């Protein structure tokens, strides 16, 4: 019985590997340059790179109210 389990598992593994072997792949150089250009294109929308203007920052410190 354990033999049939092993066979079933092995069969699944082979099927899975066949699928993965069939996946279309791209060269690292191409993938890298695509990722980099995506990064550069979106850089101006990235608050971690560009910063958040104080007027638009909902979390900026509020000055305490002074009662005159």
């Amino acid at each position: 019985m354990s033999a049939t389990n092993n066979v079933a598992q092995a069969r699944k593994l082979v099927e899975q590997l066949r699928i993965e072997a069939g996946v279309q792949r791209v060269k690292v150089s191409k993938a890298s340059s695509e990722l980099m250009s995506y990064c550069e294109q979106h850089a101006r929308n990235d608050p971690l790179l560009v910063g958040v203007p104080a007027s638009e920052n909902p979390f900026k410190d509020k000055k305490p109210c002074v009662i005159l």
Partner: protein
Amino acid sequence: MATDGLHENETLATLKSEAESLKGKLEEERAKLHDVELHQVAERVEALGQFVMKTRRTLKGHGNKVLCMDWCKDKRRIVSSSQDGKVIVWDSFTTNKEHAVTMPCTWVMACAYAPSGCAIACGGLDNKCSVYPLTFDKNESMAAKKKSVAMHTNYLSACSFTNSDMQILTASGDGTCALWDVESGQLLQSFHGHGADVLCLDLAPSETGNTFVSGGCDKKSMVWDMRSGQCVQAFETHESDVNSVRYYPSGDAFASGSDDATVCF
């Protein structure tokens, strides 16, 4: 009987050798395409300047380790869950607690905000993922409206709503991920392939398709097709548990963080 046994052994041996040769072929293919390193392509890019971070708010209220959090799409509310069994919804602008629910278990390892902002999902050692509609009606207790959606046979490690409030994707210590219909609690698709606990998952950015990536204690990161349940690609480059995975915003890449002290991209 004896011949059956022999036949099975033969098949097992041929399958194993086919598996080995396929693995070898995959490695060859990957090596062929590995013509350059990312940092070489990026050589001429200016390094980022000093990154200044400032703590703007501290949300106090959990009694023990905070295990998970998620932002609401309104960019204001946050849901967080803790080892103490509590799940809290915060208004991050005011630091007020808007909702709190005590789970029937400790170690609430996963929580997520629904895209509509009207519900949260959470779970942990209870082996379930439950959805709580958020109500401001003081007469209604959140716990009363609880809906158990996902049932696993081990702890819930991660959960995420898909594009709508109607479906939830879960990852579990039972080694599987699963896609559930919230309304009926029905299992829509299960994802088998990890050899150990699944610790994390991340959905692909919605524009790019129906996949998600998961990471597990088997050191693997796996990319799945949500519709077929098929593992599309597996990555085994870490030397220890993969604790966290995140898609790159373009959907073309993902990063993984591991107990081996590295982040892979």
